[in-house]
């Protein structure tokens, strides 16, 4: 059992457990699952700068920041204490595509070092992948009013058609980046 827990978890174990987080949060505190809101609360707590959208009682949302702190703690436990393979077991086709299209050679770790190494901040790649990418995530999620957790999981679970529009938007952006912009950049 312990050995099984230390292997990567299949989708049919992880997905239902993620789904159960939605009722768990509702039952323990009447809270809706949503992670990107934490970014707004941090901005409101640290740099409100008189901006109306950042001027609200963020202290009422501390639970969300604590939840996110837990996610980071879970990242530590899940990665360092519960084992991880050196190479994420993605499909051979993806490896081949990434080799030929993005010229990647190192497939170890969670992220390709060739793109996400901090040393890359000395060239365009680091700024594009780390800074520009992160900026779009923070800007886009708030503009859309949610991310994968708030719209895709929480929203679609509650049959919100607006969340379906958001998820179609997520995929349109992701597909454009993967299939059109990456080939132009590399």
């Amino acid at each position, binding site marked *: 059992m312990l050995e099984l827990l230390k292997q990567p978890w299949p*989708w049919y174990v992880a997905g239902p457990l993620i789904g159960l987080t939605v009722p768990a949060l509702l039952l323990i505190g009447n809270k809706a699952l949503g992670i990107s809101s934490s970014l707004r609360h941090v901005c409101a707590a640290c740099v409100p700068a008189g901006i109306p959208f950042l001027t609200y009682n963020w202290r009422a949302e501390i639970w969300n920041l604590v939840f996110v702190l837990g996610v980071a703690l879970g990242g530590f436990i899940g990665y360092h204490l519960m084992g991880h393979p050196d190479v994420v077991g993605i499909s051979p086709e993806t490896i081949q595509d990434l080799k030929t299209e993005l010229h990647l050679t190192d497939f170890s770790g969670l992220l390709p070092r060739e793109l996400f190494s901090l040393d890359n901040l000395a060239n365009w790649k680091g700024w594009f992948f780390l800074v520009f990418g992160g900026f779009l995530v923070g800007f886009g999620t708030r503009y859309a009013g949610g991310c994968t957790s708030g719209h895709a999981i929480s929203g679609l679970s*509650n049959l919100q058609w607006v969340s379906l529009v958001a998820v179609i938007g997520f995929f349109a952006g992701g597909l454009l980046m993967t299939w059109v912009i990456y080939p132009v950049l590399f």
Partner: protein
Amino acid sequence: MKYLKYLVLGTLFGIILTKSEVISWFRIQEMFRFQAFHMYGVIGSAIVVGMISIQLIKRNRLKSINGEEIKLADKKFNHGIWIGGFIFGLGWAITGACPGPLFAQLGSGLGAAAVMILAALAGTWTYSALREKLPY
């Protein structure tokens, strides 16, 4: 103490994200290239289980442990939903991470995640500052 339950649940959530490898950039690329079922299975089964759970909560009028009536607000449509969603999607394919995974990556010790989170905070702040000038 009243926040401990959120810390515990968040930790479990982080472990699930990490152990299922959805915090990996490689997995997100595999998803956007339609080369494995893994991510679709994770997100799809999460939605199905969430949907059944919410239906059960609604039909049985379950209350939270504080005795509050459980209410889920309806999300309202505006053009930010798809424009913002599209912008996030571009970022998702670049960073290979949505906000939850970014925090889990940070916990796993990736310095890159710290930079991406700071950049995401800058993005959220910029959105907040420009909010009134953006199309809705």
